[in-house]
């Protein structure tokens, strides 16, 4: 099956107020097929959100894609006109952001906000759209849609609000769903419910899902494949089971070690911390970005840039010492 979304060798550069440039994304590639969930994992500042914004064409002013292609069903979004991008957003690519309460306009009813997407892309009248909105609300699991459709965002709890956002994102049956930290702002108990919704919708609508998160628990729960990013670059990419069972990159290992696993983590052991801090992306060295924090780093790592290369079937790493136990 051919991928719906095929991002090839994309780099994103952002100009900061002081006049310098930050390399937010450095030659990243990934692709997603219908019905599969790709999780993009990394800490804050690793470029994953900028990557998503680049795909959508919503980079902040001062940001630009300096390299690569963003192919949506073969069409390069990088060369698309703003008008074409507006047509694609909401209709072919749906987006869910992190803070559901902030993502909703406080002065409009949620019914209006969901209907807006449908009216914009499918030209339906207000009344016709209303029926669709009610259906969508049921689809995402909002109880008693008829009584809630005319309510305002502040009358919704976080989890319910996020369902509204999801409803807006899938309203036009998009091919791709981009979810940027969709559960981070929610209570742990609600997180699972929201992930279920996304997962079930994925199957029902045969969507490709790109799930951006820093939470490996989420990854383990719903992802099919994982892409680990560090300092704007991809450091590892594999099927989810593979990644958890045998992480090849030291950073991935560090991330795994930083969470407790019910069976794998030895009891009463210390959680590993990754020493050091995420580098600023002002002038990325042509060397391994993780070297300063890596126990395996040697001179080659500090002088040469490791490229992403396959280790096994469906498993790629960007490291000169993959899989070496620390």
């Amino acid at each position, binding site marked *: 099956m051919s991928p719906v979304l095929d991002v090839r060798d994309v780099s994103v550069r952002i100009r900061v107020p002081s006049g310098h440039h930050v390399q937010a994304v450095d030659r990243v590639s990934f692709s997603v097929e219908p019905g599969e969930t790709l999780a993009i994992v990394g800490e804050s500042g690793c470029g994953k959100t900028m990557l998503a914004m680049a795909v959508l064409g919503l980079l902040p002013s001062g940001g630009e894609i300096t390299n690569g292609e963003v192919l949506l069903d073969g069409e390069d979004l990088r060369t698309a006109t703003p008008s074409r*991008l507006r047509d694609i957003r*909401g209709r072919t690519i749906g*987006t869910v*952001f992190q803070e559901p309460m902030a993502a909703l*306009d*406080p002065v409009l009813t949620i019914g209006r906000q969901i209907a807006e*997407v449908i009216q914009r892309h499918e030209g339906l009248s207000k009344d016709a759209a209303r029926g669709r909105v009610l259906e969508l609300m049921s689809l995402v699991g909002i109880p008693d849609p008829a009584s809630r459709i005319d309510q305002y965002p*502040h009358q919704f*709890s976080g989890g319910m609000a996020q369902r509204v956002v999801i409803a807006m994102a899938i309203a036009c049956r998009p091919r791709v769903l981009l979810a940027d930290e969709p559960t981070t702002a929610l209570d742990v108990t609600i997180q699972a419910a929201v992930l279920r919704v996304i997962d079930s919708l994925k199957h029902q609508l045969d969507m490709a899902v790109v799930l951006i998160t820093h939470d490996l628990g989420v990854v383990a729960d719903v992802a099919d494949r994982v892409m680990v990013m560090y300092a704007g670059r991809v450091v590892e990419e594999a099927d989810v089971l593979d990644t958890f069972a045998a992480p090849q990159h030291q950073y991935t290992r560090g991330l795994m070690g930083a969470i407790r696993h019910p069976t794998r983590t030895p009891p009463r052991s210390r959680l590993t911390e990754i020493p050091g801090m995420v580098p600023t992306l002002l002038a990325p060295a042509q060397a391994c970005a993780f070297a300063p924090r890596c126990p395996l780093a040697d001179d080659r790592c500090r002088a040469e840039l490791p490229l992403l290369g396959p280790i096994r079937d469906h498993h790629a790493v960007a490291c000169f010492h993959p899989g070496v136990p620390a």
Partner: protein
Amino acid sequence: MSRYFLRRAGESLIALWLATIVVFIGVRSLPGDPAIAMSGEGREPAANALIRQRYGLDEPLPIQYLRWISITITGDLGTSIRTGQPVTAEILSRIPTTLELAGLAGLFAICFGLPLGIAAAVRRGTRLDYLAGSVGLIGLSIPTFWLGIVLILIFAVWLEVLPASGYVPFLEDPIQNLERMILPVIVLGSALGAVLLRQVRSGMIGSLGSDYVRTARAKGLTERQVVVGHALRNSLITVVTILGLELGALISGSVVTESIFLIPGFGRLIIEAVSRRDYPVIQGVALFSAVAYIAINFGVDLLYSYLNPKVRMGSTAQ
């Protein structure tokens, strides 16, 4: 909504009551015979004694206040020392003129401040933004009366295209009326327009950077839908609130504008009363302004609660 309404109504009434106390103290502090100050009459001993009795001037202060407020509340604000006419009637006759001036000035301020503020926010950082910002800053810093003088200088003295002053009632001659309103409206409306410009720009920048605007863009809405339907709608609430608060500034501004352009309105009445020591009129004017101002604020609060759903229905998350 009704609970909010009742609460605000109660607060407004209390404020109003406190304001009347302030006016009362002010009037009682005026130099001269309080009987004359409050009623405008009583120059002869016999009449004076009657007034002293009516206003309870020989009784303790709180009683005086009660008497005064009971007289005043019926609309009897005394008689103007200068004209001998009832103060209430005089004030009421001047109000329409000032209303016309203030209304047109408000319209001018909106027409000039709103679009510029939006444009500046949407095209932030561009030359248009700096231009709009400068216009706003100058409008804010320029003394109203000087602007009036300069405009008179340019348009009436040098170019001779507009009259320098004077007023013709609208019903008498609409064209002349409006012609003479042009400069005063610009003068009065500029400061307000400048404030509006800055507030709109500031509000819009905030809205445009918000998450819900980002979501709106991610939904593929047109720029117009995003800017007007979402960003502007949210900013308007703050803008309306601020406009309402600045309406009081319109009253102050009208004093100066009417003085320069010799428009016989409420504002000018104030100045005339002061220079002629027409205390009953001063009393009436102070009361009137307080009532009007509190009423306007109350109205603005109601409007705000109508526009802001959170206030309208109280927050109850489900």
